[in-house]
Structure formats: structure tokens, C-alpha cells
């Protein structure tokens, strides 16, 4: 198993650099371009959520981004030590966020798509907390 760990700061510029790393790593797999973009999207949304929610907008906290290559899938883990997320949020049906009434655009939210997108774009997701470290693990099969 090949594995790489990136230790990044919780700021948007660093997250954008991490996105470039994820893109390059995905090109080592047999994932087609559209799926690679999906993985990038999911990782980006997950990292954004860590910055906005777990670290509450603080830009100098640490995030571990770990990518491991299995025989037929990628495992991407994101670890932070912020306030974390209620794991029940992952179990909830997030489809309401895209249940749009086109005749009433004022009711369309200006955000909240992150978890929905992660669930749509990745094949398996789990979240757990151990010794104050929160880990979101996402799998994508080739």
C-alpha cells in the first residue's frame, strides 16, 4: 500500500495547494477525469468544512490530509483537532439542500452543499473522534 501524508494549515491558499496535490495523486489511478474532479471537489468541500466549522474560521490550525492507495480504491483521510462535527450529520438525508423551488429564489440557500456533495461524489464516508482528533475518511473505488 502506498501512502502519503500532507500536514497543512487551515487557510484557503494552502487548501488550494492541497487540491493540486490531490489532482496529481488521482492521476496515478485509473479514475477517469470526471471522477478525479469529483474526488477533488469532495476533498475541497471537506477541507473547507474543517476551516469554517471545526476551526471556526481560524487560519493557522493544522489539518492532516492522508491519501492511501489500495488495490481498487483510494482512501482519503482528513484529520483536525477543532470542535469537530456531529457524526449524525453524515447519516442525515442531505437532499433537501438541493430541493429547489425555482419560483422562489430567495429561499435558495447560499451554502450548505458541502456534506451533500461529499456524499454524492465519494463511495464511502465515515467520521470518528479519538483523543480529540476528528477523522473524516472518504473512499473512492476505481
Amino acid at each position: 500500500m502506498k501512502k502519503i501524508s500532507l500536514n497543512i494549515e487551515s487557510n484557503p491558499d494552502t487548501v488550494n495547494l492541497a487540491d493540486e496535490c490531490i489532482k496529481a495523486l488521482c492521476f496515478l489511478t485509473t479514475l477517469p477525469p470526471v471522477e478525479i474532479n469529483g474526488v477533488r471537489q469532495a476533498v475541497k468541500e471537506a477541507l473547507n468544512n474543517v476551516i469554517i466549522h471545526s476551526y471556526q474560521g481560524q487560519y493557522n490550525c493544522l489539518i492532516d490530509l492522508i491519501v492511501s492507495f489500495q488495490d481498487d480504491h483510494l482512501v482519503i483521510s482528513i484529520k483536525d483537532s477543532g470542535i469537530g462535527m456531529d457524526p449524525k450529520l453524515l447519516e442525515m438525508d442531505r437532499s433537501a439542500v438541493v430541493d429547489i423551488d425555482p419560483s422562489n429564489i430567495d429561499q435558495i440557500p447560499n451554502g450548505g452543499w458541502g456534506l451533500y456533495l461529499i456524499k454524492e461524489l465519494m463511495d464511502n464516508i465515515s467520521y470518528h473522534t479519538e483523543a480529540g482528533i476528528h477523522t473524516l475518511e472518504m473512499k473512492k473505488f476505481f
Partner: protein
Amino acid sequence: MLLSHRTKEKIDIVDLSGKLVMGDAVTETRKKLLDVIKLGQGNLILNLTEVNFMDSSGLSVLISALKAARGKKGDVVLLGLTPSVRTLIELTRLQQIFNIFQEETAAVTYMNS
């Protein structure tokens, strides 16, 4: 994120290029688009042909612009979606509220109709 503004037949057109993602790109783009809508007729073509990646923060910019334009009885249409942006728009079902064009002339004709 690069942004340029032009007008065609009194329609505002903003050309974006690069990544529209959380951070300065989103903050600056939101401000610029809202300024363009405020100062113009409220009809905006957002050219995304050169936007190769967008996250959900970028989507919030599009929706803010649409709400501002509709507030002036105008509209925002999207032009030239790249595959990754199209996927994002479709996953979030925002094609229900944005008209999407591949050709600028078609977008301008729609805005003038």
C-alpha cells in the same frame, strides 16, 4: 481568479478565469459581480468558459449575483460551463434557476428577448 467586465448591447458580461473557490477569489468576485449588477441594468452574462474548478463557495457567489439581479428585475445567465463546473451545477440542481448557454450570441439574444 481573473475577472474582466465588458458590455454588449447594454448587457453586462463578466469573464472569469481560474478557480472560483473559498478565499480571496470568492470574496473579490462576489463584490465585483454585485457592483456590476448594482451599476448596470441588472442583466448579467457570467462567462465561465475559463473557470476550471469551482467549490460550493463559488456556487454561493453565483446565487448572490442571481438574487441581486432578480431584485432589479434582471437575470444572470451562465455561459460556457467546463465539465467540472457543469457537474457541480447539475449535482446541486442549480440548472433549474440558471439558464445556461454555450454560445455568447445565444446568451445575448436571450437577454434581449
